[in-house]
């Protein structure tokens, strides 16, 4: 391959943009960057919705049956503003659904995957721009369905995000939310279609459209994580889609895939039967366990990139990192049963799943050690993205270690479905993924908008979020140790949990503080889009290909033909004077380019 540098093709002014052109460019755009930003903005909006739903849950747990402030008299005028238990079930169902299916998965794969993949591998766009556009627009019917589900009178879907039948399959079991549950299923299925379109596109793009010289083992870890995530989605999601269709048929046609014979629900015989509720749980978790990794792997990848950049050091153990991502993905498919230890699953099966589950902690541990190795002996710059990335490492340790309790089957008997598990997955998903997402927004914001976000505000945002999230989620471990069950609208009438109210109130105050701190982020984000200080191509002096493109990149991304000579983490390389060594910079004379620098 020879270096072919062709002059760029952007920068002409065409101020008289027609409406049609505007729509083609910003609405139904096929450009991966615009689609990525569309994903980013919509998911951030949903993030706000999900956060407010969480506050609703926290209100009920801290002040059970007390009038809900602001919206109480609007929604529950008949009950004097107090939340109904049905509404509470809808709240946590929607909180989980929104956060998982409309925030975390699309913000990682949709927003960052879309924006970063072509840029980081030196491609001009995704392999299939139209498919890419469709994957975004298939989210909108899903949005519509979930809103229909939430606003369904009198109650929204309330079977939890796991939608376990028969509660979800037989409409008599949850009177009031009959069609809401069907809307919910449709929404999740549509999100699945969208993700599937995205994932095949990402895989093709990463496989086929890497810049010359960019071998698989020179890919940034973000791209590796996105690649493995896409594989997870492609293989696991169809099973959920199949199961979703079966549950839709159970609800609408009256087949009985998940409904056993002889149910007596609400004093009425349910007529169909012959199925098995556990079948849904197996099919559901066959997707949703890998989905857990779909929700963390890209975050791990992005954190690795940020850590290496601000520790000014190569990633410690690049290949072990890649292998552990792949290992997590591989093992991720054979551990779904650990969600079902007390579900009535065959105990023998539980034993095999338990061993596999224990083993999946291993690659995660390897990753943590490698991150620590990366910052060891570095030149650590405490920028906002770095702080978020460091907190990811710190918090992920908590989330990972608490997972071992759940993996141990006998212990899981006690802590299953208690707040211990709530603490665990919030440490992974909020303190982990969401913090990584914040960090990534601060990190790649200059690339996206050509401007930098305010550092001081960013650090305040980090500090407050970090404090409040620990105040919110750490104490949940303690609640879980008492056996405090999740999904109860009023746990305090149990003598065992009566005394936990003050702690729950403290948690609620922290949660309110956490949501409130995001105002700083929102203000910083929107202010910086228009008024932030302008930056050049490579404000962080990073190595990745994306930093070689203009900020923001024009259509086609690169104004030259990128040729890759090395991996993305060659910081402080002895070969060059500067502490960074971009992937596209040819080696100085007399230096033999190593075949494969990463070990």
């Amino acid at each position: 391959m020879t270096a072919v540098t062709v002059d760029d093709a952007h920068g002409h002014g065409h101020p008289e943009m027609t409406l049609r052109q505007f729509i083609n460019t910003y609405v139904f755009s096929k450009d991966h960057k615009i689609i990525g930003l569309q994903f980013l903005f919509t998911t951030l909006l949903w993030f706000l919705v999900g956060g407010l739903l969480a506050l609703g849950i926290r209100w009920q747990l801290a002040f059970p049956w007390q009038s809900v402030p602001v919206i109480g008299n609007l929604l529950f005028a008949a009950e004097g503003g107090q939340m109904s238990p049905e509404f509470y079930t809808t709240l946590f169902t929607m909180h989980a659904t929104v956060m998982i299916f409309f925030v975390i998965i699309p913000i990682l794969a949709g927003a960052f995957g879309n924006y970063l993949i072509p840029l980081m591998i030196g491609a001009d766009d995704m392999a299939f721009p139209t498919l890419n556009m469709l994957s975004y627009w298939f989210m909108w019917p899903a949005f519509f369905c979930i809103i229909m589900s939430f606003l369904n009178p009198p109650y929204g879907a309330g079977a939890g995000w796991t939608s376990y039948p028969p509660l979800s399959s037989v409409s008599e079991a949850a009177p009031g939310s009959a069609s809401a549950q069907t809307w919910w299923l449709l929404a999740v299925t549509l999100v699945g279609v969208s993700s599937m379109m995205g994932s095949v596109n990402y895989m093709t793009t990463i496989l086929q459209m890497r810049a010359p010289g960019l071998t698989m083992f020179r890919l940034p870890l973000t791209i590796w994580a996105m690649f493995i995530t896409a594989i997870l989605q492609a293989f696991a999601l169809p099973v959920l889609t199949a199961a979703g269709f079966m549950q839709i048929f159970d609800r609408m046609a009256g087949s009985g895939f998940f409904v056993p014979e002889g149910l007596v629900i609400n004093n009425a015989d349910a007529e169909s039967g012959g199925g098995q509720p556990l079948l849904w749980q197996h099919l559901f978790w066959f997707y949703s366990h890998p989905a857990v990794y779909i929700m963390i792997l890209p975050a791990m990848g992005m954190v690795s990139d940020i850590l290496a950049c601000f520790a000014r050091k190569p990633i410690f153990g690049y290949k072990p990192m890649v292998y552990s991502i792949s290992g997590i993905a591989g093992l991720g498919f054979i551990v779904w049963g650990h969600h079902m230890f007390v579900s009535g699953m065959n105990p023998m099966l539980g034993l095999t799943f338990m061993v596999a589950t224990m083993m999946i902690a291993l690659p995660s541990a390897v990753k943590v050690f490698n991150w620590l190795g990366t910052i060891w002996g570095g030149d650590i710059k405490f920028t906002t993205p770095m702080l978020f990335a460091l907190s990811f490492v710190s918090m992920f340790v908590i989330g990972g270690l608490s997972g071992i309790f759940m993996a141990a089957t006998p212990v899981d008997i006690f802590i299953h479905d208690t707040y211990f598990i709530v603490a665990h997955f919030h440490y992974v998903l909020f303190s982990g993924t969401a913090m990584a997402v914040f960090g990534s927004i601060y990190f790649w914001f200059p690339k996206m908008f050509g401007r930098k976000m305010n550092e001081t505000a960013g650090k305040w945002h980090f500090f407050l979020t970090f404090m409040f999230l620990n105040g919110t989620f750490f104490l949940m471990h303690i609640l879980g140790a008492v056996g405090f069950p999740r999904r109860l609208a009023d746990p305090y009438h149990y003598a065992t949990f009566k005394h936990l109210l003050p702690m729950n109130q403290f948690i609620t105050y922290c949660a309110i503080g956490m949501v409130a701190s995001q105002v700083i982020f929102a203000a910083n984000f929107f202010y910086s889009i228009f008024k932030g200080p302008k930056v050049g191509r490579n404000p962080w002096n990073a190595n990745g290909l994306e930093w070689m493109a203009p900020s923001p990149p024009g259509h086609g991304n690169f104004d030259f033909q990128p040729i890759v000579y090395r991996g993305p983490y060659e910081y402080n390389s002895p070969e060059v004077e500067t502490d960074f060594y971009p992937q596209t910079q040819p080696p100085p004379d007399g230096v033999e380019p190593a075949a494969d620098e990463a070990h």
Partner: protein
Amino acid sequence: MDHETHDTEHHEEHHGEHSHLRLFIGVAIALAVLTGLSFSTEFLFENNIISKGMSWFLMMVVSCAKALLVIVYFMHLKWETNWKWVLTIPASVMSLFLVLMLIPDVGNRTNHYTRERLDHAALPTKPESDDHATTHDESHGTESDDLEDDANH
């Protein structure tokens, strides 16, 4: 290197030297014959030459053979490079694994039926089996015998 060429033709000519027409005709005929074979296992079973389970097994073998023929020849996997393994093997392993893991819970579900559920469970339409509760506990492997009993009744 022209993009157009790269996209459409560059790598497509691995097997384009001669037409595989006769081969494909052969494969199509083989597929039709194998379909007939599936049928013949049914025939063998009805004439009490093989058991129901054996007939099922043979049918699945025939199906796998047919599937292989389609994949290898019609879908051109025979002429593809090594990527075919990377793609096909994990998918097949995973799909088999999923089904296998369902068996202990869902496939064996009659073993832990409650009394109420047994009362509502579909009854074998055999008037001579009075105590249906006992028949439920048998593994499904005996179904063929039951059916044969019926036929010989």
